[in-house]
């Protein structure tokens, strides 16, 4: 491991976050490199001087204080704006909307080709009466020039 690489990893070494191989390599480099050793030792010193775990003792008085406030609050809050009794309405309205969309009859658009076919169903739907013959239809379309 070269000097620049170790310098990048020196805090990871200090924190015990390197895997076994990387740690071994780092330790070998550290033994031989004065600059890296100084960085490592400098941080050890700073950490020891400034960071000490405070003593926090468990306290039943603290638990009682918190619980007294919790009882004032009653239940954990639900997301704002939701009323319990009306919550069922959301899926119900959604399902109803979906049902209406699915069940609605699809619109029928008649093209000229469809009008000219022999299908009696389409003719009867389009004209609500007896289907014209093909000649009658062509005459109607061409303006009586046939």
């Amino acid at each position, binding site marked *: 491991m070269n000097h620049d690489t170790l310098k990048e990893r020196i*805090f*990871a070494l200090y*924190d015990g*976050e390197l895997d076994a191989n990387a740690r071994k390599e780092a330790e070998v480099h550290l033994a031989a490199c004065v600059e890296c050793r100084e960085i490592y030792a*400098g*941080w050890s*010193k*700073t*950490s*020891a*001087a*400034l*960071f*000490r*775990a*405070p003593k*926090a*003792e*468990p*306290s*039943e008085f*603290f*638990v009682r*204080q*918190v*619980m007294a*406030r*919790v*009882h004032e*609050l*009653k*239940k*954990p*809050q*639900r*997301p704002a704006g939701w009323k319990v009794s009306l919550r069922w309405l959301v899926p119900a309205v959604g399902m109803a909307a979906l049902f209406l969309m699915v069940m609605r009859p699809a619109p029928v658009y008649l093209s000229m080709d469809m009008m000219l076919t022999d299908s009696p169903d389409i003719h009867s739907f389009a004209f609500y009466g007896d289907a014209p013959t093909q000649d009658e239809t062509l005459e109607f379309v061409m303006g009586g020039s046939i």
Partner: protein
Amino acid sequence: MKLAGVFIEERELIEKILSGETDAYAEIVRTYQTKVLGLCTSLLGDATQAEDAAQEIFIKAYQSLRSFRGASAFSTWLYRITANHCKDILRKRLREKSESLDALIEKAGDAAQKLWEPSFNPGMSAVGADLVERLLSSLSPDERLILTLREVQGLSYQEIAWTLGCSLDAVKSRLRRAREALQEKGRHFSGPKSV
């Protein structure tokens, strides 16, 4: 790392609370009070303020318990609430007028030099404890938080990433920057050779 059984017990406890057994929350407070209070004390320095903050954090956690989905450990979720709450307090403090580092060093006199001596124990002297607190207060809330999570609470990089909601690479780079910032400030106290 907790066993799966413990997570299940915790999950069941939370379900109980959510179904209306409010008193079950006392077990949560009992289990995590030292962790939360410890982190608050480390971050805020002042014991009274830390206790008030810890109380607020447990109330906040209770109120938002329904939003805990179990994607992370409950302790990580609670740590996240703690970290955010304390960061807000530290930010408010920053807005208040504070003494400059140079003025502080001058006022501390010899005590500043003694900070880095192996025999130094900030708990043994009010001046020393005050000095440490003021030095840490000169860091940004984010720097102080990440250093405390690592140096005092002993969280792994992965646990810090979960707590802060960031990537492992971000943890590494933020931690490194925070350490460099603190060492730079520390040089004012002890001279360039000492730190």
